[in-house]
Each structure stands twice: as C-alpha cells, then as structure tokens.
C-alpha cells in the first residue's frame, strides 16, 4: 500500500531529526517525521495530506 504523503502549509523546522530539516510551504514532509508530529501538525492545519501526483517528490 502506498505511504501517505504530507505537504507543508507553513514553514516548519524539524529540529529533532538528524540532521535537522527545514520544510517550506508546499514542500513534502520528511518521511522520518514522527507520527506524533504528523498528528498535531495535521490537527492544527500546518500540513495536509496529498495524493502522490501532488507531492514534491513527483515534481
């Protein structure tokens, strides 16, 4: 089954990742982002689910 893809709505700094990752609006969320981060980022509308053809990796 294809992995769920997420896209940033606002700029996000993932400082807990090694190395830290900065994601600008419209860019894909790193796959190694934690499920907890994904959950609250989604809840607050800071990221959104996208279909594979909308994702940054397909551009």
């Amino acid at each position, binding site marked *: 089954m294809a992995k769920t893809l997420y896209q940033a709505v*606002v*700029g*996000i*700094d*993932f*400082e*807990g990742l090694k190395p830290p990752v900065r994601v600008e609006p419209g860019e894909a969320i790193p796959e190694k*982002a934690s499920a*907890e*981060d994904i959950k*609250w*980022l989604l809840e*607050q509308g*800071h990221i959104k689910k996208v279909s594979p053809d909308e994702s940054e990796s397909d551009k």
Partner: protein
Amino acid sequence: MNSALLSSNSRVMADQYDISPFLQKMNPIRNRDYADCSTLVSTSHEYTPVLRGGSFALEGLYRTNQIAGASLQDIFATLPDTQIIVTGYPDTRAVGKPALLMYADVLKYNLDNVVADLVKVMIDLSSQKWHVEHGVSLHDLTAETGTGNGTSVDNGAATTNGGVSVFHCTAIAGAVPSVVVKIQHSTNNSTWVDLLSHTAATAATKGRVEVAAGTTINQYLREVHTFGGTTSSITFNSAFARR
C-alpha cells in the same frame, strides 16, 4: 531575601528607538471598569467587572541631543497621527522576561520647566483597542551577525485566541542589508512551525503583526532571524503577547 526589582532594570522601546536613556519613569496601567448591578432588592452595592482598558505614562528628561537615535521630543512632540509601537520591560529585555505591549496614540506631550531644575517631559499614551497587553520578550536588544534563532520560551500551555508580535530594529548594517524576523511556535520544543513573519528589515524599523483571534498558539515560542542580501549585523528586540 529581598527580591524587589530595581527600576534600573526597566527598559522602554518606541518604534525603532530605545528610549530608556531618556526616561525616569514608566507607568503602564491596566484597568477594568466596574458596573453597578445593584437592584431594588440589593442590601448593598453590587458590581460586575466589565471592559478592560489601560494607558501608558512616561516621564523623562528633555534633551535636544540624540543619544538613542531620536529624542523624546522627536518621537512624541508632534502628537503623530499614526500609532507608535511601545513596549515596556519592567525587568530587562532578556528572553522570557515580561513585556508590556501597546499600540499607542500619543495623547499628551507636556514639558515641565521649573527654576533650578532640569526640564522634564511627561507623555501620556493610550490605545484605540488593545490597551496594555502582557507578553514576553523573545529577543533582547542585542546584535546578531548571522541567521539563527532565539531561546525558546515555555508558556506552560497552549492558548487559543491569537496574539500580537512586536519588533523593534534599532540598527542594521551591511552593503545591502535585509533580515526577516519570524516567530515560531511548537508543542514539543523540537518541531517548530512558522507563526508569523515581520516585513524584512532593510533599515532601522519597527513592526507589529497580529495573529487572528481563534488561532492556537502552542506552548513554546521563539524568534528566528534570517539574513538576506549582504547583511553584517542587526540589532533588534522582539516580544509576543498571547490573547
């Protein structure tokens, strides 16, 4: 132990100026009206708290020399038609220290000339809507020489009614300087989301950005400064007040 605070720790910013070197007194007031709700059956007056209000009074020395970029006279005497971004700090501007924010109209500029004394200045400020808001410093008035972020401030819990950020840039240097100051928030002090961005500073300037009512502001806040152009340094102070 006596932990009383010395007023020598207090500082005041007004737009792109640090006006602390001119001042002898900062008097921020937050107040609330009290409405009489007594009725025929009351046995004594009964009151209910209603609208909040506030004001900011400043007293200082009249000086024509410009030790902070502009004198009190330069900033306030014309009773400007546009609001001044005033931020008071009772206990230094260090990150996490309390900040008192006002989007201020100048209501009075009063000189006091008395024989055998220094000429004094009294200034009364008020705000059209948000009176004096209680916040925290997110960046001391210090110089930065490259892109980076400030220490985070833990509010203990998230809030859900937006807020306001202020930015006072007293100096910026470089061939073609440009620095963007943003405020970020976080639930875990590790993953940071952009909350707001001030207009890029290309000269000494100021900024005030409101976050809409109903917006969640997460538990942790910090400031991020991003250098662009050919900037060698920027000296600025920023603060944020939750609503």
